[in-house]
């Protein structure tokens, strides 16, 4: 092969390599994740809005109590076995668990968001935990909702897992 031909081959190789690099860079630019505005909004507001609405929802068949009332009864009367008995025969603890599960599955579940709701006492010890994930990794939490009971101040928090 002549020297000039070798030089041309070298040039061609450089051009091909440059084109490949440009293509890879372009692919990265084009394949950036789609719109994040909605996700950001969901992360900052969804947990708080969901918990706010959930706690004020009236039970379908438990003497007209809302979810906050049922949580309160569950925490206060779990030990003395004096729980509210709902129309379907369930006590407040199992009724509220089922109802909250239905609500979270119907709202966050429909948006493919894994979630976990916890009721904890002032020392942070969990009393009730409802959800489809342990939410151990990265998560967004709602503003904690205080729940005043005979057994002290409880906090209800809803976590939305990011993975």
């Amino acid at each position, binding site marked *: 092969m002549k020297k000039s031909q070798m030089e041309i081959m070298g040039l061609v190789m450089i051009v091909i390599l440059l084109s490949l690099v440009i293509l890879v860079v372009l692919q990265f630019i084009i394949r950036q994740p789609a719109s994040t505005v909605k996700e950001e909004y969901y992360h900052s507001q969804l947990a708080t809005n969901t918990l706010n609405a959930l706690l004020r929802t009236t039970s379908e068949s438990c003497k007209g109590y809302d979810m906050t009332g049922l949580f309160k009864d569950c925490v206060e009367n779990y030990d003395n076995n004096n729980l509210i008995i709902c129309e379907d025969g369930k006590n407040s603890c199992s009724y509220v668990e089922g109802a909250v599960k239905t*609500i979270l599955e*119907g*709202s966050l579940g429909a948006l493919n968001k894994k979630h976990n709701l916890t009721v904890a006492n002032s020392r942070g010890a969990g009393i009730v935990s409802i959800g489809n994930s342990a939410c151990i990794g990265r998560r967004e939490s709602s503003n904690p909702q205080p729940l005043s009971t005979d057994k002290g101040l409880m906090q209800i928090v809803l976590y939305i897992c990011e993975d």
Partner: protein
Amino acid sequence: MKNSNNLIKRKSQIKMFETVAILVVFFFIIAIGFAFYASISKTLISREAAEQADLRSIQFSEKITFLPEIKCTSSVSKEIGSCIDLLKADKFGYLVNTDNLAKEYYYDILGYSDIKIIYVYPEKESILVYSKPKPNYRSISTFQVPVVLLEEGNLRSRCGPEFSNAKCSFALLQVGVYS
């Protein structure tokens, strides 16, 4: 003399061919570059448009949840957050779907959009509050906000019997914005 003239002619022809070939390659490269640039711009523009549509649907849902025509009337509404009064929403829906003047008036506020209340708990049929699809629309950006739906009674800070006679449901306010 004639031979040397022919040689010069040939040489200049080769040079000209070379120049033309370079120009062809140059324009070819420019065309490829332009095609790339156009396709990237198209992707970026459509992504920007989708983001804008999402943003509009979020702004829209915020506007709607605070619309006095459907919002719960309560002295503690700040505490409650997003709350929709079903009775008001029902009447509002009836008005915008039957009265032409109201239709025109609310078009200025709500534009081309759909507003739907989807029951989550208890499960019931959804309620379409407002619907005005854009003719020949390209896409619809939807956004859902969890809301308390006041079905009956007067709302105070909570919906339980120890606080008020209100009956509240859990619903999603779904807003779809046409573009």
